[in-house]
């Protein structure tokens, strides 16, 4: 379907002894909204900076539209970036900031001005065109930075945690604006963030990075429902991970026996594991059912309630499994009110075997 715009071919980036990015292979398609997510120091920003030419790969190749970009200096690329700090020029007003990239490309003053004003209008800040950037609010500055990057009509836009300095309400509004903008323009957005909600809300595909490696690439839904490994399962949040040994396996399902009991689970796309192999599975906190009495079904865990966290319509219960490990459950507040769990010391958790996903050990 879509053509590859950017290819990372065995890209390695080292800073002295420190390896920031290790043997990275992946492709970004034309018109795709891709989020690179991971904890701080995972190499996500370094990856973005390599795309902008601000860092040169130590090994491997980065190709854009088939052309090797390794040696191309930043000012000869058309890979505008929106900085976390926004990096607006304080000595220029909003319009002059937007004009900067056009001026560098030798566009005449009248065209420059017209295009800059068009973009400021499009991002609904036309009335602030002649204002100093220091007098603008966070959201307005954000829009100036976006206009400045988009005014040259690039094929790709790089965003380095651009929303991290904004308050929660504004983040939601900027997210919908970014998504709309990307659909309308049809260009590729590469969005680096540590925020799962930002990445999942906007991106077509998410790249999860951990210590310089790609941990998983997939749609937000894939990553959320079928984490490929323990790191992703833990990073993505409310997941429970249970370990054991493979007791039996078919092409589709695995039976895992561990200290908490015997569980049946879905194998998904993964190859069939050997009998006796150490394994783990993930069960998301919002895919389990609670009851006060022991249900007659597979995959049951007997727990006791430790604490609960109320965040509006959803409640997270922190339970303790018989071996002392924590088990998280998310339920609707209204469901919980019907259940009357306060007066029981035992809570039974059960889940359908197709909800649990086998992941590799380690």
């Amino acid at each position, binding site marked *: 379907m879509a053509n590859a715009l950017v290819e990372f071919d065995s890209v390695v980036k080292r800073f002295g002894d420190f390896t920031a990015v290790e043997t990275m292979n992946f492709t970004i398609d034309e018109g795709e909204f891709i989020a690179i997510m991971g904890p701080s120091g995972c190499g996500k920003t370094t990856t973005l900076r390599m795309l902008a030419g*601000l860092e040169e790969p130590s090994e491997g190749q980065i190709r854009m539209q088939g052309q090797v970009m390794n040696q191309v200096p*930043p*000012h000869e690329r058309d890979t505008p970036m929106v900085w976390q700090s926004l990096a607006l*020029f304080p000595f220029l007003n909003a319009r002059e900031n937007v004009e900067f990239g056009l001026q560098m490309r030798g566009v005449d003053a009248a065209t420059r001005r017209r295009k800059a004003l068009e973009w400021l209008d499009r991002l609904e800040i036309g009335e602030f065109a002649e204002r100093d950037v220091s007098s603008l609010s966070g959201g307005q500055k954000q829009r100036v930075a976006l206009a400045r990057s988009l005014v040259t009509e690039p094929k790709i836009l790089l965003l380095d945690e651009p929303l991290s300095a904004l308050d929660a309400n504004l983040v939601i509004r900027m997210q919908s604006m970014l998504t709309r903008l990307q659909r309308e323009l049809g260009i590729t957005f590469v969005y680096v963030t540590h925020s799962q909600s930002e990445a999942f809300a906007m991106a077509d595909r998410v790249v999860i990075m951990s210590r310089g490696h790609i941990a998983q690439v997939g749609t937000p839904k894939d990553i959320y429902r079928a984490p490929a490994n323990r790191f992703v399962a833990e990073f993505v949040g409310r997941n429970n991970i249970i370990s054991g040994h493979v007791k039996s396996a078919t092409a589709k399902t695995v039976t895992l026996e561990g200290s908490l009991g015997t569980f049946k689970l879905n194998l998904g796309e993964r190859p069939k594991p050997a009998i006796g192999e150490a394994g783990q599975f993930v069960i998301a906190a919002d895919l389990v059912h609670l009851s006060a009495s022991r249900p007659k079904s597979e995959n049951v865990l007997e727990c006791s309630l430790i604490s609960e966290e109320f965040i509006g319509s959803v409640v997270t219960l922190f339970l303790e499994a018989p071996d002392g490990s924590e088990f998280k459950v998310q339920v609707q507040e209204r469901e919980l009110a019907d259940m009357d769990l306060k007066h029981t010391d035992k809570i039974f958790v059960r889940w359908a075997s197709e909800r649990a996903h086998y992941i590799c050990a380690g």
Partner: protein
Amino acid sequence: MPSADRSAPSLAKDQTSGGRVAHWPVFKYAMRLPIVIWQGLFFIAPLIFMVAMSFFVVRNYRMTEDFVMKNWLKMMSRDYFWDSYALTFGLATLSTIVVMTVAFPAAYTLAFRVSDSTRRWAVFLLIIPFFTSYLVRIFSWYVILAESGVINAMLSYIGLGPYVMLNTKFGTIVGYMTLTLPLVIILQTFSLANIDRSLIEAAHNLGCKPWRTIYRVILPLARTGLIIAAVFCFILSFGDFVSPYYLGGSKPPTLPILIIDTVKSGQQWPRAAVVAVVMMVTLFAVAFAGIASAYRRRGS
């Protein structure tokens, strides 16, 4: 006893808070007093005295208190005064331009191209010249600039020279640079090093070539610090007596030399005061204009 232990600190606390209310204003003014006394005694008072002195008269080689315009009219109407003024202003301006230009590549390298530890060492090395007396450093130029000095000796090997460098305007500029170059490099380095790197990267990212980035982004961002450096350089050069006297040969005299000459010839302290007041006014104007433009909000 526990109760006594508890009451003792609380009592002490009451005392301090009570004491703070009672003595704080006195304490506050006492803290400010030294700087007020210092400024009053060593800056304001001499300044007033100097201005007053420029209206005094000299009779029989003795200065007498008076209020006459004679000193001012005399100095202002003399060509040699205005020649000297133009020379001093010109040399200080030229020296400032040369120093700012020579210092910039060095400061740029220290700010952007070297590691933090190299920059620390470089700043330390740039402070070392100030350990030695300026006069000593000026005299050391004799060895280098003299007609039989180091430079001319080297030039003679390739069949050039000897060139006269001592007792020329060139010598004066060399002296001014000895005084100001290390300081200007330090000030420029700090103002460049404080620039947010992401702004420079943003300029490159938007298609700005490295050379163009210097004048489109780096110079505007470092403007305040660079103007302050230039103002310092001008003030130090304009008021310097040592370089134009020993390396410039004092002919024609700069304003500081004119002050000395005026005092020596016939005890003309009042006329020297006129020169000094003119210099002060010039320096105030330059410093004020410089600082105003350094902190000016962006205009156009």
